[in-house]
């Protein structure tokens, strides 16, 4: 065996020993099943929330495109009327004058477009930056719509900043309490409190808010599961038992049915 081969073998032996040491830390532990179940529940809830987020984003884009099209029709009609009235030349001269020059990004837009139409174009461009030739300015949070706030909070949560995400979900709920996004956010925020912020009391309040709001919608099952888990962590066994039963009654084929049954057996 050459010197280089011996050295390689030594290195392999060293790494092998370290790997064996590491492997000892990888052994299964008590409580792994529960840890795995919680992680899977959390991942599924996030997947569902992302699906809802994508769906509302698609709707928003469709609305924006329709709005832009309508505004263009109005603007074209207005410009045609102006041409017909024989004042187009004067308007073009005005648009060249520095004191009435519109923003450079919209240099071709006549200044005589009805103000409400111009505002609508501006608003729709801000909502759909991909339709604008220049980047939309950074909107302050106060100007965000419910879907935008929801998307922002979801992004923050995905980046792992649970505290900031919780704050943004809270802002959404305060500003747009009746919006579908605020409704969905109760479940997302509930999971955040439950899984990341270790605050089952607040988690429970969020799940309850979703359920008592009469929104037995697409996340009803997740809300019931979250509620039962929150009660479990709060040690409120009687209410937890009742929560699991409610889940099984409402969603007998729930993906968490086995877990609910097992927990009910433990609580019996």
């Amino acid at each position, binding site marked *: 065996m050459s010197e280089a081969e011996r050295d390689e073998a030594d290195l392999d032996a060293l*790494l092998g020993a370290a790997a064996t040491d*590491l492997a000892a830390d990888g*052994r299964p532990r008590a409580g*792994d099943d529960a840890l795995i179940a*919680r992680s899977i529940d959390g991942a*599924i809830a996030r997947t569902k929330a992302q699906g809802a987020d994508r769906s509302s984003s698609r709707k928003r884009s469709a609305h924006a495109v329709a709005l832009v099209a309508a505004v263009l029709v109005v603007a074209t009609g207005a410009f045609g009327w102006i041409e017909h009235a024989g004042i187009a030349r004067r308007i073009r001269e005005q648009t060249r004058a520095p004191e009435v020059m519109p923003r450079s990004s919209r240099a071709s837009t006549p200044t005589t477009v009805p103000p409400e139409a111009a505002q609508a174009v501006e608003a729709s461009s801000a909502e759909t930056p991909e339709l604008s030739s220049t980047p939309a300015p950074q909107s302050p949070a106060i100007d965000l719509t419910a879907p935008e706030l929801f998307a922002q909070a979801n992004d923050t949560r995905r980046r792992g900043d649970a505290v900031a995400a919780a704050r943004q979900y809270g802002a959404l709920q305060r500003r747009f309490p009746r919006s579908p996004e605020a409704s969905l956010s109760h479940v997302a925020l509930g999971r955040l409190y439950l899984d*990341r912020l270790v605050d089952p009391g607040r988690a429970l309040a969020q799940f309850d808010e979703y359920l008592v709001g009469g929104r037995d919608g697409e996340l009803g099952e997740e809300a019931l599961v979250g509620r039962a888990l929150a009660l479990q962590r709060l040690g409120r066994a009687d209410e937890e038992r009742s929560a699991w039963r409610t889940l099984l009654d409402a969603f007998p084929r729930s993906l968490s049915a086995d877990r609910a049954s097992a927990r009910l057996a433990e609580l019996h």
Partner: protein
Amino acid sequence: MRVDPWQAPLALSGQPLPFGASEMSFDPLAQLAREARSGDLQAQRRLFEAVAPALLPPLRMILGPGHRDLEDVLQDALIGILHGLSSFRGESTVLHFARRVATKRAIDVRRRERTTSRKLERVRQFDVPGPPTPRETIVAERRRRHLRELLEELPEAQAVALAMRAVLGHSVDEIAQVTGVPFNTVRSRLRLAKEALRLRIETDASLGELREEKS
């Protein structure tokens, strides 16, 4: 019975992990992965249930067994697997793929934590003298520590190659195959990583004392 170091992580997962094209054609999770990728929520949950137990060992090996964010990292890894399925081309079994995603996620977490105060907490925790332990236990603990810290400090490509070798038990050939990197490049990365490990261990004063005690 001593466990083969390269098979230990696989054995610990409790599941055989075949590697290679012939086994891949019988990948029991391939169909489930396709359904999960298409957005079927039930399939996603079944896939998570199938792979999650095999993800915990590599996560614990890299993060440490008592890591406070283990559950969150597992959850992130599951989401990452789902997202990654869109670009997964069957270079390995789905379970291999899932374990690679989890391993990479754990390395990312360690490297991110390196810049935070948590590292200080870990160091303080380590430096607190505990009850007397056998020399072998101390040596093993320090080797583990050095290996984990290397995963934070090495250039990312070396760290990933090292983890795939030491944690997932992949051969150089397998690492080259799944990462799409030439064999010699992988071998070179591993050699540099192993030399870095040797350097750390050789310059560890505590380990030197232990060696002297033994001799």
